[in-house]
């Protein structure tokens, strides 16, 4: 089984976003970057499948040099190989997926795992786009995955229900929290990852189709009022919700 895992390098969840001087992206100064949390589930799932069925796991990331940190983490967790598709420009989901799909045409994976969305642009698109560019099926927001006899069974989350999906391989699967518990890299893994080479390839470039005209902060919410302390404040709260906010 050849498994490709797509990983992205994103600001951590504690980041307080400041708008950059270009007015279209965030100010990266002082921002700590991490492996996209959903991609960790994808990496873990790839490793579990390899441990069970054999094969190899290739970590792929498209972006600048700093994405190597994220690839290094994937290697430290246990990925066999890593490739950086070099592109210094920020691109949209369409262009990123195009770049990754073009590369994967040559690798011919049986399974492609991605996080369900990156926590920066929250697009939830790259998995589906890669699948269509490669002419293969995709299953998104997966919380359980089984692979046997050249096909897969997946359980995916929808509103208030779970869908059970069957798909043929090769397939793109996007990982949701709950799929597994990502492992921490062992010390041995971290040491080995330092020695593993990260292949660097110029990404196939495609133009972004969703143009960012401006980035702005959401309207500041004015702090409201403290209605009171303890259970005694409850009747007043209910009155306010009923008469002022008119929401109940």
């Amino acid at each position, binding site marked *: 089984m050849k498994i490709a895992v797509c990983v992205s390098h994103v*600001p951590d*969840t*504690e980041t*307080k*976003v400041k708008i950059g001087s270009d007015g279209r992206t*965030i100010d990266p100064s002082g921002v700590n970057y991490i492996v996209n949390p959903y991609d960790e589930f994808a990496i873990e799932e790839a490793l579990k499948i390899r441990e069970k069925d054999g094969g190899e796991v290739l970590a792929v990331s498209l972006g600048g040099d700093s994405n190597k940190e994220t690839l290094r983490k994937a290697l430290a967790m246990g990925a066999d190989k890593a490739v950086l598709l070099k592109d210094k420009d920020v691109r949209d*989901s*369409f262009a990123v*997926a195009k770049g990754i799909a073009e590369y994967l045409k040559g690798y011919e994976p049986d399974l492609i795992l991605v996080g369900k969305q990156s*926590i*920066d*642009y*929250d*697009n*939830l*698109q*790259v*998995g*589906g*786009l890669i699948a*269509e560019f490669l002419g293969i*099926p*995709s*299953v*998104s*927001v997966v919380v359980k995955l089984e692979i046997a006899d050249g096909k897969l069974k997946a359980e*995916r*989350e*929808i*509103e*208030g*229900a779970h*869908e*059970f*999906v*069957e798909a*043929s391989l090769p397939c793109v699967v996007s990982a949701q*929290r709950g799929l597994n518990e990502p492992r921490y890299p062992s010390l041995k893994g971290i040491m080995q990852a330092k020695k593993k080479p990260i292949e660097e390839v110029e990404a196939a470039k495609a133009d972004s189709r*969703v143009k*960012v*005209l401006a*980035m*702005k*902060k*959401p309207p500041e*919410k004015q*702090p*409201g009022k*403290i209605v*009171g*302390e*303890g*259970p005694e*404040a*409850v009747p007043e*709260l*209910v009155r306010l*919700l009923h008469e002022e906010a008119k*929401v*109940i």
Partner: protein
Amino acid sequence: MSVTIIAIAEQRNGEIKKTSFETIRKARGVADELGGTLKALIIGNAVNDAAKKLGKYGAENVIAVNNEKLAHYSTTGYTKVVAEVVKKENAQMIFLSATAFGKDLAPCVAARVDGAVAADCTELNVDGGDIIATRPVYAGKALVDVKVEAPVKIYTLRPNVFPAGDPDESGSEANVEEVTVEISDDDLKSKVTEITETSKGKLDVTEADIIVSGGRGLKSPDNFYLIEELAEVLGAAVGASRAVVDAGWRPHDEQVGQTGKTVSPVLYIAVGISGAVQHLAGMSSSKYIVAINKDNDAPIFQVADYGIVGDALEIVPVLKEELKKNLGK
């Protein structure tokens, strides 16, 4: 050239989702502003009756694609149908709700019809002959205004943001045009074989008008029944902070925040949640926020419209009773 918009309605077991009415209503508004044509599209098996209802939300014309192979959702099968209908109608825009269905389908359709998606939009403004879409990024810590530059422009609309309005009583049933799309096994490389409700009648946080969320301040998973009971009185969905999901107190599908679900209900009640940056990002676009927390310095009070300082375990039972009285239950 006049623009044609396809708005895709979503049905489960023949029931149209409320979010689809929101999306169709907005698509109608945009079509009118652009002087274009709107057609709704509904896919499934025996969905003509459901299709007619869309007339009361602004879709005079509905294309229904019935096929027993499409009774359940199939990413590849539905993608083919949408692509064929878009081609047949020569549509330049597609609207969907940013539900699990819409978010799954939109990128696949985009690749197939040479389009691109502005995902999870919270505002759509017509500017000349084009649309400027506003969408949250970084789970709502920032917003971007975007313009789609592609032959087919696709917009997914965040649930609970665009009003569906009441059904037009004067509005007639929609004209339903049945379109046949051949579906071979090769078109069903992925397909849903079964659906199970996670919990009978349980509302999902992304669809709820009211959410009651609990955090560490409840002290123990055994106390979460207080949240559930309060939610029941309000007809609300139950949410949870990352801390209690990580601790295994609650299932992850209830998690609100940057690595959980982003929500915009009318009323969000945060109980025993201090308000970490990643949690605030996921819920601060709620219309009204109530916070109950024992620490009056907790960041949640910075975004709350109304706060009560105190022990959640003492306050929530009283709140439940008071609401029951108020709601006449």
